[in-house]
């Protein structure tokens, strides 16, 4: 037992860096995926056909390719066409691309829950498509999407552990390395599992708080 505390103490900065890398991958991945996912969702509901097709192809590809395959293609495939990206940013890129496809579908279904009466009323007031989206549809849609977006966030958090397989030093990778040195598999993997669990529970808590916050002010359609 003492050896375990000794191991954790000696490697505390190493472990901390791993936790910070996981947090960084997840947050950067989620923010990027949210931005791109929303854009692609707008493409998918737009009246311009080429944009709709582009959005559909994007989602069908990145949603159906396994994240690990995508990461391996980015880390080992891109250099062959001349793009050598640092490993951490490869991880972020993979998470953004895969996460954005899932978030796009979440946003799109949120947009679809807004009754068509809102869109018609906005058009009647003379609003263009983009103004309509920006001022009326998306604000209401995001209110209904808080819990599904928390789901997506947790998906990105768990997906970030795959970056360990391509060399990124996140908490999963760090615990694997410590296991090689100290052969304490159970303790170390329980530790990395606990890190993910705490982070995911935190995300769930933030999600619930956000949901309560936005439900206080509703200009939205009757439910």
């Amino acid at each position, binding site marked *: 037992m003492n050896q375990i505390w000794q191991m954790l103490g000696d490697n505390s900065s190493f472990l901390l860096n791993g936790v910070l890398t996981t947090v960084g991958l997840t947050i950067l991945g989620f923010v990027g995926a949210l931005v791109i996912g929303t854009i692609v969702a707008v493409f998918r509901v737009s009246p311009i056909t080429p944009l709709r097709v582009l959005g559909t*192809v994007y989602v069908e590809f990145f949603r159906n390719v396994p994240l690990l395959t995508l990461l391996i293609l980015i880390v080992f495939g891109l250099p062959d066409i001349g793009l050598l990206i640092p490993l951490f940013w490869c991880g972020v890129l993979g998470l953004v691309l895969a996460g954005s496809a899932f978030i796009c579908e979440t946003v799109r279904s949120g947009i679809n829950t807004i009754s068509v009466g809102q869109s018609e009323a906005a058009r009647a007031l003379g609003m263009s498509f983009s103004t309509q989206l920006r001022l009326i549809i998306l604000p209401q849609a995001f209110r209904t999407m808080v819990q599904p977006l928390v789901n997506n966030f947790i998906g990105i958090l768990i997906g970030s552990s795959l970056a360990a397989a391509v060399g990124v030093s996140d908490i999963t990778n760090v615990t694997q390395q410590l296991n090689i040195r100290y*052969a304490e598999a159970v303790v170390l993997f329980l530790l990395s599992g606990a890190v993910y669990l705490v982070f995911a529970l935190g995300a769930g808590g933030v999600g619930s708080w956000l949901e309560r916050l936005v439900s206080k002010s509703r200009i939205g359609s009757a439910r």
Partner: protein
Amino acid sequence: MYAFSRRGLFYVAAGSSAAVALAACSSGAPPTGTSSGSASGSANANRQISQDAYDAVIKGGPVAGASVVSASPWATKIKSQGYVKRGGTTTGAIFSLKDPTTGRIAGFDAGIGDLLAHYITGGTDVSKLTQVAQTSVDTRETMLQNNTVDIVVATYSITVPRAQKIAFAGPYYSSGDSIQVRADNTTIKSVDDLKDKKLVTESNSTAITALQKYVPGNTPTLFADNDSCVAAVQQGRADAYILDEAILLGNAVKATDLKVVGTPFTVDPYGVGVNKDDPAVKAFVNTFLQKIFDSGDWLKLWKATVGVYVDGVPTPPAIGSVAGS
């Protein structure tokens, strides 16, 4: 209603075939005609372990007398089982590699397992002597502790922390870490030149601790398997790949744009992992190892596997000479 319209289908097909083409391109440039400067010198291409030569070595190995087997409950169980359950890998070049066309596994580690099985059971069908259960660095100790496997022979370095969980018979092979670089690299000649270079190694390798000692302050990038590390050096993500010499030589055979430089700068002994509960098991395997060291079968196995890629006539290590064994 959104269904898979023809137009959508076309765009999806175009997108996925572009991705497949990209993946095909990334499988590496075709090999050049010149051979790399590996330690074994001439004609590197097409060196392969001969399955027939390997089988002959196994069948020629010693067989234990009936009294020896019955004196050991562990060996008796294996004999009635008919085969040895070996924890190891099927994707390790030179040590334990499965031929996808025949399904047969051959290599130095595979040979130690097969020779032990032949020693206990006396069986002559080499393909049935052992059953390999895939282990990774994370699962080796656990699989021995709960007896999922009888032995682990998997380039398993003997270390004191590991020896507290399981027992090591041997060592049966003494290797060392060496350096692999691109064939056109002239700046790295030995471990002293590694100071400010980008290094890469396997995440399951004892090379990590070696690098901490010889190149302090330089943290290597870590990948899960050998092929990823090779790709990292070929693509320029790293300048040098540090790993066990025999594996690097195996890489240089397949990838002629890489070479191995310098001589091994560490000593890395491999052991046979067994369950720790009954000390007689370790003693049994040590007796077997000493037998094949003395009879010349160890050298025959080496010649049929590692010796295909490395020149020289090694001597077997001394059993019990390493801390933890």
